[in-house]
């Protein structure tokens, strides 16, 4: 999709003023966070699992070239076709090329964030091929002509009433005209509509949660069963996967899958974990005749070669998103690209550039919850800080912001002047805000006070309190 992360600030203003969105965000926050906590409390040593998972991913990244080639050897030995794609446009070109070769008219799709990243739907449409999202959440956002707002629950921003309206409008053409009310009816209707699409599609495209070097296997972890229908029924199956999806062995998948479902949806295990190795075998009655994997770089090797390389451990579970207070207030669309929340605030500027997404690393309170829940122990706050440093060094960001930081930096290196000025500022603010104890308007701080009050300072600075404490306690 076309990024619009540049408009982060105005996106945020819009999101905060949208009552429907705020309602939906609350439901998820509660549900996903509580379910995860429950699932994790049942594991005897979750911390140990996190450490093991981290090590698996870190080891793989340190030998990435080796494991990728090993994967290629084993996958092609089973008759699979591997394609290396340097960037989004190369990936699009490869996939559209496969579709054209098979004269494809329709493509059924399982959920794939890598697919979103390379805007595969737009590319297919431009080539006259109809992409059909089959994951319920993805289908809903496709009907609404919107991007997903969460990597696990794509339509989390939509209320049931909005979905009912959407189906009433779009499902008339299939002969459905009875108005629906229950979630069960909505799900059933999509199931019925999709069935013939699965059976008649020319090509199926899915993502991958893991690519196993040892066996050349592609693994998907799902609940709805649509991914399996996409990879089983059409004559051609294409997998879109970032090259960091590689893991050495099936046992590594076992270890990582213990963390994935629990962190993502709070399930001990999803309904389906599927290991697909190559196209159908002779005498098989189903399975694709061709299986292609498009291995996508799109900025990942640059990431590997940077101070942010730990981000490549990410298994796209969404836990950091669910626990992020900023995401919880503004939702996924505000981030303006494919990946929202803390992981998005690192990945987006890393992949599409700081010019496009410079606001994202700054939209973080550094509260650190994301790091504590991340199953592969990615130090997200540290990475966000590093991005801020990079941004400052590369002279990106607004003049006021840069000037402010620079001034602060200068002042802070002269403690006497700094404390003097801070003290004056604090006295002034507490004097002005003494009555209400807070400000709802403040010079130079409109973006703060627009959505919340700024508390007026209480008492003296930490420094003077500390001085006083030392004097009182140590004479």
């Amino acid at each position, binding site marked *: 999709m076309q990024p619009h992360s540049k408009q982060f600030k105005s996106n945020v203003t819009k999101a905060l003023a949208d009552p429907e969105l705020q309602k*939906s965000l609350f*439901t*998820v926050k509660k*549900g996903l966070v509580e379910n995860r906590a429950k699932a994790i409390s049942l594991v005897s040593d979750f911390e140990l699992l996190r450490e093991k998972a981290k090590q698996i991913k870190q080891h793989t990244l340190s*030998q*990435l*070239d*080796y*494991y*990728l*080639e*090993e994967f290629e050897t084993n996958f092609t030995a089973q008759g699979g076709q591997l394609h*290396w794609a340097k960037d989004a446009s*190369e990936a699009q070109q490869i996939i559209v090329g496969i579709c054209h070769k098979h004269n494809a008219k329709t493509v059924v799709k399982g959920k794939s964030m890598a697919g979103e990243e390379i805007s595969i739907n737009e590319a297919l449409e431009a080539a006259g091929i109809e992409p059909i999202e089959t994951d*319920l*959440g993805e289908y*809903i956002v496709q009907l609404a002509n919107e991007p997903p707002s969460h990597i696990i*629950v*794509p*339509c989390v921003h*939509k209320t*049931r009433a909005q979905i009912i309206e959407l189906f009433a409008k779009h499902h008339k053409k299939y002969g459905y005209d009875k108005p629906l009310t229950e*979630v069960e009816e*909505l*799900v059933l209707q999509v*199931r019925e509509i*999709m069935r013939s699409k*699965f059976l008649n599609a020319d090509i199926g495209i899915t993502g991958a949660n893991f690519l196993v070097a*040892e066996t050349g296997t592609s693994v998907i972890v799902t609940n*709805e*069963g*649509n991914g*399996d*229908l996409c990879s*089983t*029924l059409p004559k051609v199956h294409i997998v879109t996967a970032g*090259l960091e999806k590689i893991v*050495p062995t*099936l*046992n*590594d998948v*076992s270890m990582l*899958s213990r963390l994935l479902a629990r962190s993502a949806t709070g399930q*001990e*295990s999803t*309904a*389906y*974990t*599927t*290991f*697909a*190795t190559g196209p159908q075998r002779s005498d*098989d*009655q*189903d*399975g694709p005749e061709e299986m292609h994997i498009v291995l996508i*770089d799109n900025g990942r*090797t640059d990431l*590997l070669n940077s101070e942010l*390389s730990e981000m490549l451990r990410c298994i796209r579970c969404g836990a950091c998103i669910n626990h992020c207070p900023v995401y919880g207030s503004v939702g996924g669309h505000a981030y303006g690209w494919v990946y929202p929340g803390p992981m998005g605030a690192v990945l987006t500027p890393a992949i599409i550039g700081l010019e496009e997404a410079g606001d994202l690393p700054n939209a973080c309170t550094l509260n650190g919850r994301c790091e504590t829940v991340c199953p592969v122990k990615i130090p997200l706050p540290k990475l966000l800080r590093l991005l801020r440093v990079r941004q400052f060094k590369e002279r990106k960001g607004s003049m006021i912001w840069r000037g402010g930081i620079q001034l602060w930096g200068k002042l802070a290196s002269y403690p006497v002047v700094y404390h003097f000025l801070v003290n004056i500022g604090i006295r002034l603010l507490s004097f002005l805000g003494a009555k209400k104890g807070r400000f709802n308007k403040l010079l130079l701080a409109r973006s703060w006070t627009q959505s919340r009050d700024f508390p007026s300072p209480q008492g003296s600075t930490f420094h003077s309190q500390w001085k006083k404490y030392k004097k009182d306690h140590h004479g």
Partner: protein
Amino acid sequence: MDEQNKESKRVILQKIRSATKSDEYSHKDNILRSRMKKNKSTEIKYVSNLDVFISKLEQAKATVSVVSHKRDIITEVHKYVSQHQISSVITVAQHTDFPSLDWEGVDTTTQYNPKALSTSVTFAVMGIEETGALVMLSSPSSPTGMNFLPDHHFIVLDADKVVKTMEDVWAQLSKSGEPLPRTINLITGPSRTADIEYEIQIGAHGPKSLHVIIVKNH
């Protein structure tokens, strides 16, 4: 491999090598193989008490019954379909552990027709206690679609084949030395979604019901 693919591969690998400071010829000998060996347990842990396994499946909204003889499989399927008023023909997969089941009295077929498949019986090769998963292997007589297309799905499992963890499954499968089958499905419960208002709904695109029949003393 075409020229563009070769060139992209070269560029990508080269960028990785310069990031990880390894070059093409510096590969530590058989890193992967030594890791694999270290990883594969030799002893496979089977589970004799199935309570945990069954409770995991039930948590995932599958129904489970335990029968004591393989001829009871048919009785059990018959009972279930009449209780739930399922009238469709039942598509039955083949499995070497259960050859020559006599489906006398139940309307069955072994013909696989994806376009008309609303009830099926397939056979798991193993169960996993840790997750309540049933391990399904694809084969010419047990196509993957039989696990995903039906509205109502029966899975039959030998009670002696439940292992502790997923790792035990890999240890067992690697014993034969054969490559993996085209598809391995680990299935825990019927299909589900929580995409609308985070309300859990059973029966998304895969089966709406899963009934597991565990056979003892088979």
